[in-house]
């Protein structure tokens, strides 16, 4: 069944979009990430204009992160205090990201900035996580579990001034590195058109040692707040949000996310981190290949916005 999208100005197959929404929603629910980095390339591949693809999938992220965050809130797996600090830093970072986006576009090198950022972020985050999970795996095989966290055994940056207590996350740390992290995530998110959950989740896990269950809920809360702002900004600044496409993606996504979240709860923590690491590495390598391999078609067309 074909349906015409009023803003993208082209017809799409309803079943295909529902299926894509469900698949990305599953991954998003499983790992507590937004899934924007998977959805945007898929939509562009279908022929939807890039601006519409980036802007519209924020609506789907809003819906799926609402569901996840509400579920986490009910299970008491959401640290609202930590989440609020992350949102505060994230919004400032987004502002900087939007400004840098415009500067790179004026310089004519936006594509390069985006692809290089994708490759660096995904391969670095992915391989760090993979290394960690392999080490974890080996030490558990040898029967010598890693020593549990002891009191006073902290990374030095947690002891910087402005310390705050986050009881739900079992965290007593300086607000400076937390704000710094959310600033960076907000910056990268605005630049790449993604929520940034894939940076936030491993950072909270490894840098701040927040419990896995709380990480997902809190990250979804932060994603919800930043993508809500991004959605409205995209609608006002680019007029590129397609409400029909958004509803189709949401319908597929909410079901996928439910099954993903359920599967995630039955997954062992080590396996969870290992799979997330593999996913990130795969995306990073895919972009690296695109950058290095001789393209079959070196030319590309884009429509220049001539808005007044």
């Amino acid at each position, binding site marked *: 069944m*074909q*349906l*015409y999208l*009023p*803003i993208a*100005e*082209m*017809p799409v197959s309803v079943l295909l979009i529902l299926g894509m929404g469900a698949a990305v929603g599953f991954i998003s629910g499983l790992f507590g990430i937004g899934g924007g980095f998977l959805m945007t390339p898929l939509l562009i591949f279908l*022929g939807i204009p890039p601006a519409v693809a980036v802007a519209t999938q924020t*609506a*789907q992220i*809003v*819906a*799926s*992160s*609402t*569901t996840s965050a*509400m*579920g986490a809130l*009910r299970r008491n797996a959401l640290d609202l205090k930590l989440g609020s600090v992350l949102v505060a830093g994230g919004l400032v970072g987004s502002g900087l990201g939007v400004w840098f986006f415009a500067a790179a576009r004026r310089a*004519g*090198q936006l*594509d*390069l900035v985006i692809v290089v950022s994708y490759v660096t972020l995904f391969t670095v985050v992915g391989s760090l996580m993979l290394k960690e999970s392999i080490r974890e795996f080996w030490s558990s095989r040898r029967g010598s579990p890693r020593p549990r966290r002891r009191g006073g055994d902290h990374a030095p940056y947690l002891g910087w001034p402005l310390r705050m207590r986050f009881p739900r996350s079992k965290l007593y740390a300086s607000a400076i590195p937390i704000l710094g992290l959310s600033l960076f995530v907000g910056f990268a998110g605005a630049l790449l058109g993604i929520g940034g959950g894939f940076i936030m989740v491993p950072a909270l896990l490894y840098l701040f040692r927040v419990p896995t269950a709380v990480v997902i809920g809190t990250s979804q809360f932060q994603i919800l707040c930043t993508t*809500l702002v991004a*959605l*409205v*900004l*995209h*609608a*006002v600044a680019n*007029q590129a*949000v397609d*409400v*029909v496409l*958004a*509803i189709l993606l*949401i*319908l597929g996504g*909410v*079901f996928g*996310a*439910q099954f993903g979240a359920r599967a995630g709860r039955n997954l062992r923590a080590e396996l969870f981190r290992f799979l997330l690491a593999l996913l990130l590495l795969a995306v990073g390598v895919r972009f690296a290949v695109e*950058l*290095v*391999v*001789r*393209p079959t*078609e*070196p*030319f*590309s*067309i*884009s*429509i*220049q916005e*001539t808005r007044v």
Partner: protein
Amino acid sequence: MRSAGRLRALVTGLLVMGGVPAVAETMVTSLSSHRLAITSNYTGAAIAVFGVIERDAQSISRASPYDIVVTVRGPRQTLVVREKEPAGFVWINQEQQLFPDAPAYLGVFATRPLDEITGEALQRRQRVGLTAIVNAPDFTTERGAADDAFRDALLRLKLRENLYVQEDRAVTFLTASLFRLSVPLPATAPPGNYDVDVRLFADTVVLSQTQTSFELVKTGFEQQVGEVARDWSALYGLATAGVALLFGWIASVIFRRD
């Protein structure tokens, strides 16, 4: 059949109108519709072009047959074509070429292959055929030979998307002087104004030319959404956000485990 009835009405209309005998041959053309509506199940459209060639009594009959070339130009866009080149060990966009006034859709339809209708020099001068249009000096800024690769790339990529088409035998003569063409519009052709240019050729020269146009417009729900998104963008953004929040909340209630 509807189109047959419409055709008969058109032909009678043309005969009643009579010709304006300024030159030997005149041509009268019409479209099956001047306004194509996009509805929610739109998957592309076809528009029919009809025409009648009229010859006044004095002019002698020609030895060579008539030929028709129809050119359909969609709404204008500013297109940028970029070329990836190796820099170190990565491929990045380097050179680019601006096409400030390129049609989003371009269709050229004829009775015979263009080379049989007229010569290459005339094709170039009169902008007949895709190659001639894309290679015209005013299509983009001339940069010696540097712009040629970009013109070729534009044509190649647009042909692949089916947004630029050239069909050599699409126009058919129903009688010696009555011709018909069905223009296929792909679903990705954007809404806007489409110019239809019809040229009558005989013996390699243009005898007559007519211009008409049709409009591809969003209607009903599609039109309203487009207008709200443009004129009330903040409200539209907030409404979409509200819908997303509502769906997310409903899902969390439906799938509640306890």
